[in-house]
């Protein structure tokens, strides 16, 4: 064996030499090859992170939100509530593939995309330079889909324990068309009205969806709660969460998944992604403490549900700011959000008496609004140098960069989001009410959605 190798060696050397001589590449070719290799390596890194992020964001809806909300309802409604999150993973996916992505991210008018990506036509391996120059366009598409899934799922917290399943399906599909796709296009789509980075008329900063995801869902939730009315027996019967344990697991999954949501919104495995990751984590920690201490002082006990609700409030508030602010402003935003949302779900909800069953408005609407405004204050080009003038000079971002006008821009973005959510949701609720009816019958509500709507029970102790 060894002898054979020794005999072969000169032959191999000769062969290699001959090959090198015949195909000696020019310097230009070698540089071009090198450039291609570098580009491909960067694309591989970015794509790996973006696919991971997409999976993380899907994990926020199921199991994250399904468990978080599922634990907060009564035992008889646990499956119905989890289903409202889970089924959107299927429903929105189909709508997104057919036309949703195109309406949100096709270049169209300032308020809505066109149909260029209908049936995902042209959304393939080649990157779309406007959205993510280093990852396949398809990666960006599937990443954005996960946001479109969780947003309507968040609203379900407001109508939990009393909405018909058919009405919920119709509502969420119409809501995606009337509220989500236009808003996503305005804020993130090329040429969108509020898109600060791709030619928007009113430059608004929303890194990962404070307006598109949280204000839109939270405010729509409030409209749903007011329109549908309270749960039967609200304020009379006990409506305690049936398992805060499930909610703790859900909240922790949300916290972890949110790294994909916020750090993934850099659309690259970049230093900006790291910065957003750090800001997200810091704000969440501070918000959990903020809510906990506020509650401890107010009620005498630091509840577990309070601590995890605070964490979610912090995640919500830092979402628009995550790619624009330094770590310490992130801590401050989180702390404010924790205390503010505690105040919203206790004092304010109690005063007005609406039944936002799982506090979708108190956490997402209130936290999202606070976060969007704070983004205008603390956004800085030291973190994100993506905004440049015609000559390529990096522009200051928020109040801390000497641009107080940005707070006003943010406020306009907030108002537009509130307005679209209120008007859109009212129209859709009316349609659903007429077409299928919104609420289950009183008997079904008493029996619980699990048995009356789905023919199952969450916990079968006899089996």
């Amino acid at each position: 064996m060894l002898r054979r190798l020794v005999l072969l060696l000169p032959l191999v050397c000769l062969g290699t030499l001959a090959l090198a001589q015949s195909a000696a590449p020019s310097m230009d070719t070698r540089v071009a090859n090198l450039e291609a290799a570098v580009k491909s390596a960067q694309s591989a890194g970015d794509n790996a992170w973006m696919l991971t992020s997409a999976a993380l964001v899907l994990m926020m809806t199921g199991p994250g939100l399904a468990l978080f909300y599922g634990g907060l309802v009564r035992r008889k409604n646990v499956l119905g509530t989890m289903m409202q999150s889970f089924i959107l993973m299927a429903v929105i996916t189909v709508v997104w593939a057919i036309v949703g992505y195109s309406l949100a991210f096709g270049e169209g008018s300032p308020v809505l995309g066109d149909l260029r990506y209908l049936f995902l036509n042209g959304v393939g391996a080649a990157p779309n330079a406007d959205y993510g120059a280093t990852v396949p366009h398809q990666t960006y598409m599937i990443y954005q889909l996960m946001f479109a899934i969780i947003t309507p799922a968040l609203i379900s917290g407001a109508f939990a324990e009393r909405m018909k399943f058919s009405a919920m399906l119709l509502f969420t599909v119409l809501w995606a068309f009337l509220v989500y796709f236009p808003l996503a296009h305005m804020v993130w789509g090329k040429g969108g009205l509020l898109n600060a980075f791709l030619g928007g008329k009113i430059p608004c900063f929303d890194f990962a969806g404070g307006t598109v995801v949280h204000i839109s869902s939270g405010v729509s939730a409030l409209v749903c709660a007011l329109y549908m009315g309270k749960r039967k027996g609200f304020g009379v019967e006990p409506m305690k969460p049936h398992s805060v344990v499930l909610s703790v697991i859900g909240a922790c999954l949300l916290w972890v998944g949110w790294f994909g949501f916020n750090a993934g919104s850099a659309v690259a495995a970049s230093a900006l992604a790291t910065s957003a990751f750090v800001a997200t984590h810091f704000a969440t920690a501070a918000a959990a403490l903020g809510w906990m201490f506020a509650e401890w002082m107010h009620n005498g006990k630091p509840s577990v549900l309070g601590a995890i609700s605070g964490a979610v409030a912090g995640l919500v508030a830092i979402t628009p700011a995550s790619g624009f602010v330094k770590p310490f402003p992130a801590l401050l935003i989180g702390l404010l959000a924790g205390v503010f949302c505690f105040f919203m779900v206790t004092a304010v909800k109690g005063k007005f008496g609406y039944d936002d069953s799982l506090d979708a408005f108190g956490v997402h609407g209130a936290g999202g609004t606070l976060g969007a405004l704070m983004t205008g204050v603390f956004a800085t080009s030291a973190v994100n140098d993506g905004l440049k003038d015609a000559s390529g000079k990096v522009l200051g971002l928020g109040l801390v960069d000497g641009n107080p006008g940005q707070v006003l821009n943010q406020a306009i973005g907030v108002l537009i989001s509130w307005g679209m959510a209120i008007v859109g949701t009212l129209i859709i609720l009316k349609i659903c009410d007429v077409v299928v009816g919104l609420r289950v019958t009183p008997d079904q509500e008493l029996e619980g959605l699990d048995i009356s709507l789905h023919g199952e029970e969450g916990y079968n102790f006899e089996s």
Partner: protein
Amino acid sequence: MKKIEAIIQPHKLEDVKEALKAIGVDGMTITEVRGHGRQKGHKEIYRGMEYQVDLLPKMKVELVTTDARLDEVIKTVVESARTGKIGDGKVFIYDVAEAIRIRNDDRGEAAL
């Protein structure tokens, strides 16, 4: 034959079981129940919503014994379940008309 039905604190269940085993009583049925007598409940707060919880978790121990051993068994249950605080529970005694072992149709005290 008498049936002893004891509503006790959940954390005293092991003590009661051990004490009964020590005097040779090894058959019983345990149920998780909720209830209250003079004991006051507690307050729970979930996101600002206050709930007064009156019905507290208890354990119900049921066992049937011969008339001859009744006093001994009652004494054992009561003493082993006692902490001396409000909420320790109660014991009720019933007459039993008949006992039947399902496996072989034994009747009366032979079925215990």
